[in-house]
């Protein structure tokens, strides 16, 4: 088996003739924090949507532990252990924080089809276990106080934490974070950085798009820089930062504010 958890090989994605991703390749090692940076509209989120099955790339392969997962539906991708958060937060906003996180336990739940109609002893055990797991995650993400609060009523920073808790509830092997620090203040960003380190320490591989350069440079072990859908540079943070092509890509586009 391949030493890489995820391999993206020569992937291209077109939208009605426009090239959103252009012959992109990258390799993510198990346990790594992998950063993806690039100016707005470079195709970073499109790449994440291709990995998670929301889009199917026209060309290339996406290998998960050596097997091509291109074109598999999103719910099956999640079942493989690839979970994600969204750049524009997508919580079940009317539902409570605990119920939101419980959605991550869905694929881990052992309830049978008839448990939607009639409870069984195995169901009660499973239900209790899943809620206990939700409780642990709320502790970890410091959300216990908001257990019954509708997710949509909470602040942006807390909502981002709920999204991460929800994805982590599914016990992913690969966690894909789409701009986790967008809209966070300085303190919240520091907290987030520590949280991501803790998640890595649990053995979860992390891929992340981020515009906060300080954060992405300090966290990532390896970085790919994308512009106009194509890779312009890759390497360890210190290399990427010094690469003239990267500097060039960011000149004239230093307004990195993402309107989320």
């Amino acid at each position: 088996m391949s030493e890489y958890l995820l391999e993206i090989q020569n992937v291209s994605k077109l939208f009605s003739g426009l090239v959103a991703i252009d012959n992109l390749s990258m390799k993510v090692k198990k346990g790594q924090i992998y950063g993806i940076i690039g100016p707005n509209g470079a195709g970073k989120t499109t790449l994440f949507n291709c990995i998670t099955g929301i889009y199917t790339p026209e060309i290339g392969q996406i290998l998960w532990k050596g097997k091509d997962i291109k074109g598999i539906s999103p719910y099956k991708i999640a079942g493989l252990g690839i979970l994600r958060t969204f750049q524009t937060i997508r919580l079940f906003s009317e539902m409570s924080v605990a119920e939101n996180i419980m959605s991550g336990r869905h694929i881990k739940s052992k309830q049978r089809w008839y448990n939607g109609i009639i409870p069984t002893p195995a169901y009660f055990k499973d239900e209790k276990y899943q809620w206990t797991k939700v409780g642990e995650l709320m502790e970890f993400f410091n959300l216990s106080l908001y257990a019954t609060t509708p997710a949509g009523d909470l602040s942006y920073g807390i909502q981002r934490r709920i999204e991460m808790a929800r994805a982590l509830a599914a016990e992913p092997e690969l966690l894909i974070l789409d701009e986790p620090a967008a809209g966070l203040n300085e303190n919240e960003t520091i907290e987030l950085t520590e949280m991501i380190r803790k998640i890595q320490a649990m053995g979860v591989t992390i891929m992340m798009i981020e515009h906060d350069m300080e954060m992405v440079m300090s966290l990532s072990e390896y970085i790919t820089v994308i512009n106009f859908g194509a890779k312009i540079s890759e390497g360890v943070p210190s290399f990427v930062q010094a690469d003239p092509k990267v500097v060039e890509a960011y000149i004239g586009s230093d307004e990195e504010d993402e309107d989320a």
Partner: protein
Amino acid sequence: MMNKTSLIALLLLGFAGLYPLFVDSAWLAVGTTFLVFACVAFSQDIILGRAGVFHMGHAMFFGLGAYTTAILNVQFGWAILATWIPSVVIPMACAFALVAPIIHLRGDYLLVATIGFNIIFIQILENDVFGLTGGPNGLFGIDVVRVFGYDFSSQIHMYYMAFILLGITLFIMRSLDRSKFGRAMFYIHKDDIAAQSMGISLRYYKLYAFILGAGIAGAAGSMFSVQYSAVSPEAFNVTQSIMFFTIVLVGGSASLPGVLIGTFVMFVLPEVFREFETARYLVFGVAMILTMILRPRGIWPVKFGNIPSFLKKEAK
């Protein structure tokens, strides 16, 4: 808060249980039909209020259950008791066969397709296909429930059978709400992209909702045909489907008390105001419009946050 809700529920249960002792036969029949319609409304709510699928052909599943009992009893001489299982299973099988090919359709497209099913269903009934359905007049002379030589034939029997059926329906709704199946429906309803990214198959859970809803509607249909000892096509047409759809939205999607209130408002109130004849429907039209403007989530909206108490740590 918890106690107040349970108290209201208990009072309602007591009232519903003793209702036949206080009313004349006409009102008893209204009560029975209310219970049956409430079951159908709950089954519509599984599909519309929980899974969030715009399904406007639910009277078809109700009718399939009613006609299954009627045809098996009148044409083939089956005992009513023996028709109960087919009257649940046949609507479920039809739900699977008809809805599986169109389940990927979004909102309004699926709505039109389900109306189409309902129209075809009525055409089949009216044209007396295979000489089974009795044409536009329907079928008459449906038997009563007999167990060990005892006939459950009075209106009071009908009422309590419907009462038990509603009890079973409520038990299922409660189990659904507290299982991963009910939750998956909510997740799909609130944000289908996020739900899929959590590993939830849209197709599986939408079909689950349809099949479960069709089964409950079928059981209610069977009860309905026995109560009136007759079935005819107009009880299951698109107008009736629109009524079930409206009951859920006016009462409160995915809310158990909401759907009961919706059924009461849309079905019992017109009976109360019978002396105003057709003018009463004008009032209802206006009431429906006002509800949607003033309480867009229904008269008694659903409340989320039903989580085990050991997770509730809020400082009160």
